[in-house]
């Protein structure tokens, strides 16, 4: 156990920033923005420090802190990170400054906007490190508040409906999840996620729960599935998994783009994190029981959203659906890992691959999607609010640097080898094919359609004849290039040398898969 409460400090840092911003008020907008950015960069720095001190070889949770909070209910303040948590922390720390940069031009109530962003960052940090259900659930729920208000107060024309839908969907899922965990608590008296997963590994958890909860008119298997369904619903809405995704496109498109960056870059990962940290270890056998329907849903997510993004005319919607698609691959990988292999070592190795791919994809998609939306924000600002697919044309003639950098990002999203987007998808498919062959095969369609989408965007926005409206379209300024450079560079670096990330998470992945015992 580390003596310095690094994680608590990390989580508290953005909160302090938010308070500082509200104290400053609306007097000086420039100061507000820079202060906010400073706080988020400080958080990034701290995260990198954690990364540096993280020991990839050890299998235990690091930087743990554990205090009694509500002993009567066995609720603890418990935090700790392994490779997965660390990766997500880093992702959040990177995505938030990107989101802030994309929101630089917001004029209304600046301090409130950036304060809400910092609060959201704190919630993200908290959610990725908390290890006791109540503690974790607090962050999960609290994160909805700043997100809701960011959408509601600065969003587009149909923001009220979008914000409401977002809130209601997520709340319903959360309540279902709460009910599940209350049932688990009733049976075991525990809220601690690690202890619950250990109990689950021993094989008795769900059965004990079912007998103790005592729904006598259902068979134990059905009762177990109902308990699982609650938690599943909560996370399925968040990721999102088809068919619980309908909130996403309007929310992403109505939210101010800086918020969309946070939503797609980090918040959606909360859902996947939940699958990995909670659903898989605790409800493994239940997932296996319904594996085929789950796979169908994942495939549907991948394929249908790809086709949907093809049909969109609004750039934000295109990439909203594209997000569903990319995260669908992660779900595919997770479900593949859930498949029962029973000790067949070669298949277990494939599971390692798939899992690694999932983690990588989470990180990479976060980075890439964030950057894409950043570019879209810039497009919006430069064109006075336009972001339709057909509004532009031939921009490469007037803004070559813009085209180039955005092109790189788009190709990364497509999955071009050499850029970061490729490796994650590759590993997922490599691992899934032997495990869930038909599902993986069908998902390849998604890959192809995504390619069509990306190329279509490139073509319509940047290539072709120049749209005379944008003859004066300014190219990237030096400042913008400098700020974009780290992200782009990271895309290359991770594309060429994924070991940078894999090295840190590999051990965690092996641990996670081994603990699954099937």
């Amino acid at each position, binding site marked *: 156990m580390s003596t310095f409460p690094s994680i608590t400090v990390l989580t508290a840092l953005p909160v302090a920033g938010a308070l500082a911003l509200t104290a400053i008020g609306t007097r000086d907008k420039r100061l507000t923005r820079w202060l906010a950015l400073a706080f988020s960069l400080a958080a990034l720095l701290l995260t990198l420090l954690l990364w540096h001190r993280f020991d990839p070889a050890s299998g235990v949770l690091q930087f743990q802190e554990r205090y009694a909070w*509500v002993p009567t209910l066995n609720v603890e303040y418990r935090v700790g990170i392994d490779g997965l948590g660390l990766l997500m922390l880093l992702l959040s720390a990177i995505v938030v400054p990107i989101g802030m940069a994309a929101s630089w031009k917001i004029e209304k109530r600046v301090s409130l906007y950036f304060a809400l962003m910092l609060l959201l960052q704190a919630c993200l940090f908290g959610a990725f490190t908390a290890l006791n259900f109540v503690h974790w659930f607090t962050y999960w729920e609290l994160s909805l508040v700043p997100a809701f208000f960011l959408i509601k107060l600065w969003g587009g024309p149909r923001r009220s409906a979008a914000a409401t839908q977002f809130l209601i969907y997520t709340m319903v899922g959360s309540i279902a999840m709460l009910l599940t965990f209350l049932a688990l608590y009733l049976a075991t008296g525990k809220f601690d996620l690690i202890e619950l997963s250990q109990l689950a590994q021993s094989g008795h958890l769900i059965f004990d729960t079912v007998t103790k909860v005592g729904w006598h008119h259902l068979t134990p298997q059905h009762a177990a599935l109902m308990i699982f369904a609650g938690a599943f619903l909560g996370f399925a809405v968040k990721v999102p998994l088809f068919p619980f995704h309908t909130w996403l496109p309007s929310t992403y498109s109505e939210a101010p783009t800086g918020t969309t960056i946070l939503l797609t870059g980090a918040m959606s990962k909360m859902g996947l994190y939940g699958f990995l940290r909670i659903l898989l270890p605790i409800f493994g056998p239940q997932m296996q029981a319904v594996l085929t329907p789950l796979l169908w849903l994942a495939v549907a997510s991948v394929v249908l959203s790809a086709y949907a993004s093809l049909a969109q005319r609004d750039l934000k919607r295109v990439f909203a659906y594209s997000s569903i698609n990319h995260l669908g691959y992660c779900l595919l990988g997770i479900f593949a890992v859930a498949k029962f292999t029973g000790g067949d070592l070669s298949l277990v190795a494939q599971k390692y691959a798939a899992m690694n791919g999932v983690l990588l994809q989470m990180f990479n998609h976060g980075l890439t999607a964030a950057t894409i939306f950043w570019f879209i924000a810039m497009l919006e600002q430069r064109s006075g609010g336009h972001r339709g697919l057909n509004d532009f044309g031939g921009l490469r003639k007037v803004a070559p640097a813009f085209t180039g950098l955005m092109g790189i990002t788009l190709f990364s999203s497509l999955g071009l080898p050499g850029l970061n987007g490729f490796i994650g998808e590759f590993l997922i498919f490599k691992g899934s094919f032997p495990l869930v062959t038909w599902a993986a095969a069908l998902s390849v369609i998604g890959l192809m359609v995504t390619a069509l989408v990306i190329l279509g965007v490139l073509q319509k926005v940047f290539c072709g004849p120049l749209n005379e409206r944008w003859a004066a379209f300014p190219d990237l300024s030096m400042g913008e290039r400098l700020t974009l450079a780290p992200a782009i560079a990271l895309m290359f670096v991770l594309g060429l040398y994924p070991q940078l990330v894999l090295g840190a998470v590999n051990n965690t992945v092996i641990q996670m898969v081994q603990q699954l015992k099937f």
Partner: protein
Amino acid sequence: MLAWTIYISFLGALALLLLPKGSTTAARLLALAAAIAGFAIALVAFLQHRTGELITITRVPWIPSLGIEYHLAADGISLCLVLLTGVIAITGVLFSWNIEQRTKEFFAFYLLLIGSVYGVFLSYDLFLLFVFYEIVIIPKYFLIAIWGSTRREYGAMKLALYSFVGSAMVLIGLIAAYVAAGAKTMSLGSLAGFHFSPHFQMAMFPLVFVGFAILAGLWPFHTWAPTGHVAAPTAASMLLAGVVMKLGAYGCLRVAMTLFPLGLSSWGFHVFGLGSWRDVFALLAIIGIIYGAMVALVQKDFKFVIGYSSVSHMGFILLGLMTLNQIGLSGTVVQMVSHGILAGLLFAVVGRMVYDRTHTRDLALLGPMNLNRAIPFAAVTFVIAGMASMGLPGFSGFVAEMMILIGAWRAFPLIAVCAGVGIVMGVVYVWRAMQKAFFVEDGSAPAQSPLPPITLPERLGAAILIGSSIAVGLYPQMLLKIITPALNSPLFDGLREGGWR
């Protein structure tokens, strides 16, 4: 020492009446001083009292020929509720700072009400408890009838009559129990330990429980609540929804369930799937939760939304009472404290911050006023209060509702799921009211005179309430620490033997 909470309030009321006419500032300050003094005493007692066990404050014979004593005592549950009363008392005074008409009478009735409420929570002799419980009715009536707003005389009378009928039912049960136990003592401890015949308990329990539960807003006897809350002036609504409704729930727990625990056991036959009074009241509670939420959802008057939300939240408390397990009952007490704070806050925003400035509570009229620009403090406070009332973690409501849900899972799984639905509906109606009142951004901002800014007393009051909710939300252990031993005390033995798990 704790008895001084009662005495100071009553003395304060008397002193207020003796003030010369027209001394509004003196009246306010005196009332605030009395409220703070009461709270300070309660806080000191709370901090000193590490375990939740019963401490006797005063015990002297009162009417020896009838075995009635002046017996004040406090255990963990009483302490929590006394603290709540203290907080609401102070903030109620702060939010009534702007009353100009007949100020000293207002605060005199107010302090009388507070003193009686303290009395109920601290009484351990049933006669004494009943005396304080009845006294509450009168100041309530006058506070609403004189300083209220919409249909105040009707609302006040309805409230008074419903409360009186409820307490009449309780009186019958108490006298019957007293006589059946030999007419020797009215002490709660002795009567709780007396073994009444199961038949007797089966008949008396619903009588006394419903009698108290009327004041707690049990469906379908809740109809006084929305009318009364809306008619009442802000501080009275805060007290009414925040504390007085808890008197009913407290009575249910402290009196009905300890005196007649066998009344909760199975009847031996089933009617529409219900097999005991416990089932009946659990069903009524969940109906109250859902009904309150549904009706809150369609209200056009802002205050009615909050009024019906109180009915819905009190449903949680009543459901928690019926779980009959330690977690559910602890959660109920925490929910009493939590809802008390939050209801106070919500009514303060709607009544004091919004209505006193805009003179309308119609959501359709409030929307175009762009209140989140005009009075941002009110908007922020309502958002926080609304989130807390939805059950957002980090605030007091979450822990309480979670514990009640756990308790309900154990006892009635189906009802627990319905309660979950109720929570979701809670989100929806709070969101709707918040959206319609504060955040309608339709672009057109009609020119209107600027609203008066939020005053210092209001800010203080809001800060105190929000702080309390966060304190309980982040550190519920401070309450649970004293509630659990209280629930394990001999007083609840009968309940434990009956149906506890």
